[in-house]
């Protein structure tokens, strides 16, 4: 099982698709002190890729990683106090992931710090077609949908390079959905 989990984190050639589920998180947003919304479709990703500097290690990795991604949609919420959000707030997302195309491939839950993370894979015609990521902490909720082809192993490596993400919200969110 463990080797299967690692295998699932290896390169996953995913097929192209637009946003694959509704990120209807209004109840979470209402309770959050800060939130970041990023919605990037394929054309915006391709446009951005032209401005990524290959001589910068992180940007070079991202440039390589986004080849084949058809869209990336992120909602990140931060709360002033623990317990400000509940699992019920994520139910609209989980309900969609219970559909036949989605299957949870890996996840972990830490009882110590209340940290949870899970990765869901969408398959269409027996082929991987997208990824959903739900990550929660006492004061943070992150939901991600990546449509298209992405190498999860490389994405994980990128997370190691970036370390703890610093959230600098853009002036205005992109709405390319």
């Amino acid at each position, binding site marked *: 099982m*463990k080797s299967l989990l690692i295998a699932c984190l290896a390169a996953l050639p995913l097929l192209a698709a637009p946003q694959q589920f509704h990120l209807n998180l209004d109840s979470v947003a209402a309770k959050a002190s800060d939130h970041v919304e*990023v919605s*990037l479709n394929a054309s915006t990703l391709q446009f951005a890729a*032209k401005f990524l500097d290959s001589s910068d290690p992180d940007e070079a990795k991202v440039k390589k990683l986004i080849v084949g991604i058809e869209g990336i949609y992120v909602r990140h919420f931060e709360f002033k106090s623990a317990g400000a959000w509940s699992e019920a707030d994520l139910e609209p997302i989980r309900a969609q992931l219970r559909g036949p195309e989605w299957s949870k491939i*890996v996840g972990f839950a830490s009882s110590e710090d209340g940290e949870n993370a899970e990765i869901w894979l969408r398959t269409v015609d027996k082929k991987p077609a997208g990824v959903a990521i739900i990550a929660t902490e006492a004061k943070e909720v992150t939901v*991600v949908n990546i449509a298209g082809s992405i190498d999860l192993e490389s*994405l994980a490596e990128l*997370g190691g390079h970036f370390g703890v*993400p610093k959230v600098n919200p853009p002036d205005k969110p992109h709405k390319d959905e």
Partner: protein
Amino acid sequence: MDWLEDELRRALARQESPDGFADRVLARSGRGSSGARRWLAAAAMVVVAAGAGGAWRQHEGNEAKQEVMLAMRLASAPVHRIQSEVRGMTQ
């Protein structure tokens, strides 16, 4: 030498220009310089527009790049966390 003096006097004698000649010359010269000015203005506008378009494209590109980097930071952190947990379990 009288014939030569007569010829020179005749050749160099002041002659009045035809009616409206001066106006026609002034009108033509004015039209020419106005056209040149228009071309110069148009060329300058094209250069300015191209420069502004390039600067705007650069600005938009940098904005898009920042959003991609932010999205990747937020998406990669939990995947890295899961990978670390799974590797920790298997070792």
